[in-house]
Each structure stands twice: as structure tokens, then as C-alpha cells.
């Protein structure tokens, strides 16, 4: 009996130690520190600002949709043709078919003075540099862009064709040439102007022996419409009279 109790006590001690170790292991595996949020107040404010901007953009979109809906509603009782023409006009404007005038800025891409002094040949702007510029500028919404008199729409492509940079399949002149940007309001133009003045794009352009000359914002910038037809590969016209 004495031996048995001795066994049991030793066993109990060992088993309790095993249990303790198991529990500690369980504790350590299940209480991994949660990923800490190390953003400071300005980073969080930045995020809030971004979200707010997205929100206001969405609200604006909803308002536009509501307006279109309202136009249709009104047209139901009045003139359906007028509403359709209005919609088509609006769509054409958004797709970039119409010429327009508005507040904006002009940007001139020029060869850098150093390259002229050294007598380096002036080459066409690299396609990826132009794409980078457009992407950077396009971060601001509601911009309408024209590159060397070629309207840049959502269907436009900037490509390198046999060493020549093209927009919409048309060659871009060797520098100097102008890029025009039209914004919704004059304040937006000033914003784009200030943004571009301080942009690191200058350095990117300078590597390719180019400089960006940004003109002051003006109230009247004229843009050409897209002259080519848009090929719809996947959209088809419905036969008339079908519901």
C-alpha cells in the first residue's frame, strides 16, 4: 500500500507538471500578439481623407444617376426623344467625342537645355514615361487630357510603334509638344498646377533629357474631340421594336 501511494504521488507530480507545460504551451500559442496598428494620427487622417473623397465621388455619381433618372421620368410624360438626345450628348461628352473649352493648364514638354548645349539628338518621348505622366496626373479625378492635339480617352492607348511613341495610333511629335489638361473648375486647375510643380515627375523626365514647362492655369483651354470612330467589339445594337 505504501509503495502504491508513493507511485501515485510521483505520478501526480509528473502529471501535474505535464499539464502545466501543456497549458503554458496552449497559452503561448493562442495568445499571439495581435498585429499592432503603428500608424500615427496623420496616417489615419490621410486614410480618412481618402475614404471621404471616395464617399463624395460616390455621392456625386448617385446624384448624376438620379438626375438621369429624373430626366427619363420627366421625358416619359413629355418628350422621350429629347431625353435620349440629352443622354447621347452627355455620353458623347464623357467619351470625349466633342470639342470643349474650359479651365485648365497647358504643359509643354521640351528638350532640356543641357541636351541642346551638348548637341544631343532630340528623340521622341518614351511611351512608358508618357504613360507614367498620365497615370500620375490621372490620380486626380475629372481631368480631360489631350496629348499633342490627340484627345486622351479611356479607350486611348499610348504605345511604342517602331520606336515612335503614339497616342490613339497617331505619332506624338518630337519635343517640344504640348499636353493640355482641362478640369471641372478653375480651383481644380490650380490644384493640378501646384501638384505638377512639386511633382517628382520632373526628375523622371530629366533622365530622358526632357523638361516639363507648366504654364499658369487659364480659364479658356480648348480641346479637340476624338475624331476616330470607336469600334465596339462586344456591344451589339438590338433590333428595333424589341422589348
Amino acid at each position, binding site marked *: 500500500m505504501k509503495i502504491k501511494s508513493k507511485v501515485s504521488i510521483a*505520478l501526480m507530480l509528473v*502529471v*501535474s507538471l*505535464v499539464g502545466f507545460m501543456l497549458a503554458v504551451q496552449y497559452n503561448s500559442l493562442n495568445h499571439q500578439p495581435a498585429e499592432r496598428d503603428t500608424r500615427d494620427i496623420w496616417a489615419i487622417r490621410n486614410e480618412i481623407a481618402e475614404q471621404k473623397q471616395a464617399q463624395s465621388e460616390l455621392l456625386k455619381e448617385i446624384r448624376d444617376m438620379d438626375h438621369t433618372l429624373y430626366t427619363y421620368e420627366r421625358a416619359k410624360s413629355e418628350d422621350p426623344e429629347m431625353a435620349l438626345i440629352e443622354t447621347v450628348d452627355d455620353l458623347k461628352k464623357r467619351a470625349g467625342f466633342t470639342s470643349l473649352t474650359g479651365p485648365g493648364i497647358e504643359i509643354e514638354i521640351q528638350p532640356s537645355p543641357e541636351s541642346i548645349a551638348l548637341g544631343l539628338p532630340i528623340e521622341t518621348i518614351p511611351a512608358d514615361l508618357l504613360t507614367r505622366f498620365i497615370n500620375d496626373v490621372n490620380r486626380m479625378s475629372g481631368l480631360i487630357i489631350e496629348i499633342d492635339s490627340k484627345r486622351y480617352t479611356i479607350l486611348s492607348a499610348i504605345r511604342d510603334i517602331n520606336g515612335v511613341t503614339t497616342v490613339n495610333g497617331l505619332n506624338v511629335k518630337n519635343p517640344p509638344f504640348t499636353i493640355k489638361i482641362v478640369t471641372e473648375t478653375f480651383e481644380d486647375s490650380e490644384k493640378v498646377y501646384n501638384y505638377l510643380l512639386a511633382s517628382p515627375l520632373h526628375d523622371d523626365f530629366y533622365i530622358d533629357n526632357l523638361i516639363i514647362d507648366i504654364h499658369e492655369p487659364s480659364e479658356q483651354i480648348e480641346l479637340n474631340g476624338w475624331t476616330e470612330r470607336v469600334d465596339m467589339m462586344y456591344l451589339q445594337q438590338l433590333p428595333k421594336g424589341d422589348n
Partner: protein
Amino acid sequence: MWLPLLGLLIGISLGLLSDLQIPSVYSNYLSIAVLAALDTLFGGIRAHLQQVYDDKIFISGFFFNIILAASLAFLGVHLGVDLYLAAVFAFGVRLFQNIAIIRRILLTKWSERAEEKKRGEIEESQDVEKL
């Protein structure tokens, strides 16, 4: 029988309630120590069932195995070889062997007991018939 169970409960509750945590770097060592402890524990149970149990061997084996496993893991970390896998393998195999032996011993014990009971019943019925 209930004393080891009580010990297990006490150990687990102590561990959970103390909310003790070890850094994840050392969790390898602890897991291998747990494995070594389990191995020793089942070895002890087997020895007890085979009636070759020795207190000193059991206790010394328990701590020695844990220390050996942890130091093997430590050495492995510093040599850049996963040496703790060797310990895991050795303890794992021994764990299975011990549990298999325990199972067999228990099974033979139960079958013997059942046979004895049966024999007893038969003898009883024979006694009744004699009466």
C-alpha cells in the same frame, strides 16, 4: 487512480490561470519538453503495469529526458540543423511503443478477468446442480 487525474487538472488549471506565456522563439523547446514528459509518463505507466517500476528511474528519467531534448533542440538551433526533429522522432516512436504495450497488458488483464468470471459462474452453477 484519481490522484494523477487530480494532478493533471491542477497542472492545467495552474497553467491557464497563471496566464504564463513564453516567447514564440522558445515554444519549440517547450513543445519538445512536453513530448519528453509524455514519453516518460507513459514509460512509467508501462513499467508500473509490468511491475518493474522504480521511483528513482522514473523521476530521473523525466527530468533527464526533458533536459536532453531541450538541449538537443538548442544545439540544433545553433548548428542550423533541425536536431529537435530527432528528439521528436525518438520520443514519438517510443510513445507509440509504450502505448501499444500498455494496451496489450490491459487487454490480457481484462480477458483473464472475464475468463475467471466465466469459470466462477460455471463452478457456481455446478455447485447448484450438485445441491
